[in-house]
């Protein structure tokens, strides 16, 4: 067995078809970088039988088919065999040489009927609408993980001054493109969905297309910055696909 260079690496089982690589116990930036490095490496060097690689805040999960895992010498079960392969693959990984991340600029038209809760968020924190927009569009966010719905990316890095608990009563339908704040995270609704986050604006971009080769605009580990646009720029995007 090759000892991995990664510190705090633990392999555990989730049921009988998922191997979980645990890379920490917090949602810190350092953990996130390790998660991203491991997930990218395992996506590129996926052991046979692995069907999905799912990164989250401090874990990378490998969904596998036990029937497709070759039981090699020294191992008894599909899990053991896969764990050995994963350990070997990660042993060769230098976590410092983190892979490149994609960066996205996402135009958002804040407020009015696109962001019905912008007023409420501003009031809650004793800020002006302009303050909230400035604070939301300043950080370079990191996609912590996807979940809830196809293309729904949880973005970490929200300014604590505008962190807002979810609404007591979720909306039954939030239109696609809506930008919301849920606790210390922010996200764009990729489809028309039910949702309990505070809505502050809307983006004209398409975040999920089931027919595209890469169906989701955002992937775990990507970086995101929001750019405030006017209503006219939002409308223009629908005419010529450009927002500036």
């Amino acid at each position, binding site marked *: 067995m090759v000892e991995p260079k990664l510190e705090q690496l633990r392999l*555990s*089982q*989730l*049921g*009988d*078809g*998922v191997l*979980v690589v645990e890379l920490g*116990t*917090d*949602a810190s930036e350092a953990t996130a970088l390790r998660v991203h490095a491991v*997930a990218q490496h395992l*996506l590129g060097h996926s052991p046979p039988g692995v*069907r*999905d*690689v*799912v*990164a*989250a*805040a*401090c*874990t990378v*999960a490998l*969904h596998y088919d*036990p*029937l497709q895992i070759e039981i090699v010498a020294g191992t*008894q*079960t*599909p*899990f053991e065999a896969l764990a050995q392969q994963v350990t070997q693959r990660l042993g060769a990984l230098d976590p410092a040489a983190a892979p490149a991340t994609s960066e996205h600029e996402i135009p958002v038209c804040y407020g009015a009927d696109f962001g019905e809760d912008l007023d409420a968020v501003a009031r809650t924190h004793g800020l002006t609408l302009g303050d909230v927009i400035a604070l939301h569009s300043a950080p370079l966010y990191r996609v912590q*993980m*996807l*979940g*809830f*719905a*196809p*293309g*729904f*990316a*949880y973005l970490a890095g929200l300014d604590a001054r505008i962190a807002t608990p979810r609404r007591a009563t979720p909306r039954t339908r939030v239109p696609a493109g809506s930008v919301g704040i849920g606790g210390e995270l922010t996200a764009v609704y*990729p*489809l028309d*969905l039910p949702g309990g986050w505070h809505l502050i604006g809307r983006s004209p971009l398409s975040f*999920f297309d*089931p*027919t595209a080769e*890469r*169906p*989701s605009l955002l*992937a*775990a580990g990507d970086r995101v910055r929001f750019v405030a646009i006017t209503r006219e720029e939002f409308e223009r995007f629908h005419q010529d696909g450009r927002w500036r």
Partner: protein
Amino acid sequence: MALKVHRAGILSTLQDLGRYGYQRFGVPVGGVMDEYSHRLANLLVGNAEHEATLEITLSGPRLEFSHDTLIGICGGDFSPALDGNRIPAARPVLVRKGCVLDFGTCRLGCRAYLAVAGGFDVPLVMGSKSTYLRGGFGGFGGRALRRGDLVPTGETGADSYPGLRHQLDAGALFAYPRWSVNANSAFLAHGHHRIHFIPGRHWELFTEDSREQFSGVEYRIATDSDRMGYRLEGPLLALKEPTEILPEAVTFGSIQVPPDGRPIVLMANRQTTGGYPRVGEVSTVDLPLLAQLPPGDTLRFESIAPEDSQRLYLQRDHDLGIMREALRMRMKQ
């Protein structure tokens, strides 16, 4: 070639073994709830096991065949009838063009799988024919079947089951052999359902009382259970102390416990990640049984070691392999 839908039933959707490779984009795996019955139905008609079948729920559809078609029905008992004549499940049935297949309401189990030789001719979306209703993609136009639909079916080689073909040529409306396959009869034994689960990483976070009760006391499947999750009524489960769990991947059979203490078993249409503490995961071999239990049925959980669970899974696949070979021989008769 097509199936004409005279009546759609409560929820009839095309499903296959699921949409893998896209969970990292938040795309649910979906697919059939009862993988065993689905695979068996496909084997009966000579399809690949990953070919889509029609998953029928609680109350079934009424379908007309545009061409002579070889079909197989497995899973729950919906009293299927062809032009008014009851037909047996778990065997291949060659149906004459123009015949109408009528499913009733489910008497045992809660889902049946209809396979047609040649499969369903719908486009692959992200590598799968499974219908995902919430996203509106996959299967037949991303939705459940409706009255008036013409669902395209694939081409087949006409050389299987020549004995049945002969009966149709002699004038029969439909024909089936005297034998049947040993379908997943586990759920037919009504009453005491035992579901194995593998205690997970959060198991120790629960109080001793909760852990003891969970693996022993009876749970009832609540009425608000669906393809996404089965809600369970029974002893409430409590954590030793309030604990924030960082969200991470979940899977088919993950048993999560929201703050109200009522466990939910995540099923085929589960989300890809979840943030609630989990008791553990249901054994893959027991998911087909669980998927056939309708709301109101009761079950007990029993813990199993992950390696034993994997062994049972490999064993079941071995048994299916034997069935596959046996059917290959029968298809020549």
